[in-house]
């Protein structure tokens, strides 16, 4: 297992390098001097700024040929210097650390909600194929897949915050009041529910199809012929096999979710990474955007590894 993890990490190296190359290309595509992406912007105003820039340029090797520059830049990135935020004039790493908790809270809640709803619905839909429930589940999940997430968010705010006035329209806590658990939960409900709704759609379809595939396997007939109860057949034989692919999908999807919350966090003014990205776009704060992109790409690689290991743990047929 350890050997597999190590070899898998080695395989990931070309991909990681690819990611860093692309990120580096971005650095050079972005308007302005690349050096500005790596140095403290507070030093850039006033007298001596030109001299400071020139000095930094030599320090960072930006006068050297591009491949050398790439290596030097990579060294900075790997040691944690993701640059400084143009807007807030603090290291990007610090900004990200501040925001990551909110995003994790939001996405984790949404994923858990989605899974908890999707598994029973998907299983029931597959067991009662072509029933009213199946059609209803199918239509609802299709709708969830098709509605733009921000529109669903706006609708939710319109209904629950503006018309019914039962939930706050955005933010993570009521301003000017010390944070309490119930206050956080109230703020969390809407964004988490909207995100969960969007996730549930594909999950339901996934679970249903996966169950249908498993239910027509020979070993299900074997279990029935043994005299096992329908409950037992579904729970002990069908469900476990059907959920193996779902775990892989979940593991692979999570990083995409972390960065993909841009829209939902913007709509609900939820102070996570997504909102940070959006604000950075508005303020052309490239170091921040680039860092988030890079970090989530690395995270994807890690999660792919986790998915592979998880699949091997769940499915004895897979040899690592």
């Amino acid at each position, binding site marked *: 297992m350890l050997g597999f993890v190590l070899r898998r990490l080695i395989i990931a190296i*070309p*991909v990681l390098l*690819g*990611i860093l190359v*692309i990120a580096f290309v*971005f650095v050079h*595509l972005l*308007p302005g001097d690349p050096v500005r992406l790596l140095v403290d912007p507070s030093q850039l105003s006033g007298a001596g700024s030109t001299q400071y820039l020139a000095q930094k340029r030599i320090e960072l090797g930006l006068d050297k040929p591009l491949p050398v520059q790439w290596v030097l830049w990579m060294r900075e990135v790997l040691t944690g210097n993701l640059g400084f935020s143009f807007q807030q004039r603090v290291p990007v790493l610090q900004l990200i650390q501040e925001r990551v908790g909110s995003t994790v809270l939001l996405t984790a809640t949404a994923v858990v909600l989605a899974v908890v709803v999707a598994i029973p619905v998907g299983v029931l839909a597959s*067991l009662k194929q072509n029933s009213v429930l199946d059609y209803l589940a199918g239509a609802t999940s*299709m709708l969830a*897949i*098709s*509605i*733009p*997430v*921000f*529109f669903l968010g*706006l*609708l939710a*705010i*319109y209904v629950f915050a*503006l*018309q019914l006035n039962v939930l706050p*329209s955005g933010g993570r806590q009521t301003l000017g009041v010390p944070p309490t658990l119930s206050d956080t939960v109230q703020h969390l409900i809407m964004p988490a529910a909207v995100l969960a709704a969007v996730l549930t759609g594909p999950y339901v379809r996934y679970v249903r199809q996966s169950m*249908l595939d498993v*239910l*027509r*396997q020979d070993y*299900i*007939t074997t279990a*029935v012929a043994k005299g096992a109860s*329908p*409950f037992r*057949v*579904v729970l002990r034989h*069908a469900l476990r096999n059907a959920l193996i692919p779902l775990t892989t999908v979940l593991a692979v999807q999570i*990083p*995409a979710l*972390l*960065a*993909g919350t*841009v*829209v939902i966090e*913007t*709509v609900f003014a939820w102070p996570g990474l997504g909102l940070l*990205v*959006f604000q950075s*776009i*508005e303020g052309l704060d*490239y170091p921040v*955007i*680039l860092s*988030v*992109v890079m970090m*989530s*790409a*690395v995270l*994807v*690689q890690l999660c*792919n590894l986790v998915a592979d290991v998880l699949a091997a743990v769940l499915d004895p047929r897979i040899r690592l």
Partner: protein
Amino acid sequence: MTGEAIGGGMGADEAAAMLGGHLAGPEETIAGPGLPSQSPTRIALARFRRHRLAVAGLTVLVVLVVLALLAPLIAPFDPNAVDLAQYRRPPTGVHWLGTDEAGRDVLSRLMFGARVSLTVGVVAAVSAGLIGLVLGLLAGFLGGWVDALVMRLTEVVLSFPSLVVIILLVAVIGPSITSIVAVIALFEWPIGCRIVRQITRVTKETGFVLAARSVGASNLRLMTRHTMGSVISPLTVVVTLLSAQAILLEAALSFLGLGVNPPQASWGGMLRSAQSLTVLSDFPWLWLPPGIAIAITVLSINFVGDGLRDAFDPRQEM
């Protein structure tokens, strides 16, 4: 959950398979020389027609396309004509869907916005599909280092959070329909590519490709005549679903202010006004119509995609 509900664990098609395929008695279809030959395409079409939601989706799409094409002729107003006297008017007999903050007719903007959404959806998805087709065929058929290279490339692209990277790129290049289409295509091709590669790898090993190789068919012939046929149907499904994705992406971009340049109308851009709580609560005619329009379009495309999938997959019953 009755005893039998999962009893056989077998659908009608498995039952059919168990019966050894003696369903439609092939000897009978052949006996009648007058019968039209059932080509695979014809069968798929017949199956698609049985999928009611897909047919409905297709109908809606056709209507939308016609409306978008004819927008310059049938739109009641110039979508960009500013009329400050008509500031944020609710729907009336003249302005069926009201007017926006510059007094522009919402219905007209909606019709012109459809052109943006549909163009982005179709062009981006088809380009992504073409890139995926070519790279996937090569990777799957040739294997070896070509395969390794293409696969690593898909991994790199799939590693990036597409929305954020697309935002970044669009911000860099400057927002326009062309740049949005290009960037979306650039980040959406790997899905199609992987599917094409997978099917190609399987098809390459099937009997009919082996038989064609044994008569001396060249690689090019094997790819275009034999493998492509197996690949096209699933790729069509992917492209359909990708176009739905592309429309959603374009809407999100416009909503975040990185879409087509104002004053050109786009659905996502029209929704942008709803970021203000005042608009959201007091002027619902400004944001409900474009939101509903996006949802209906994407829903229709997804239904068509589902219908195509069922039509191409003989295992699916409908």
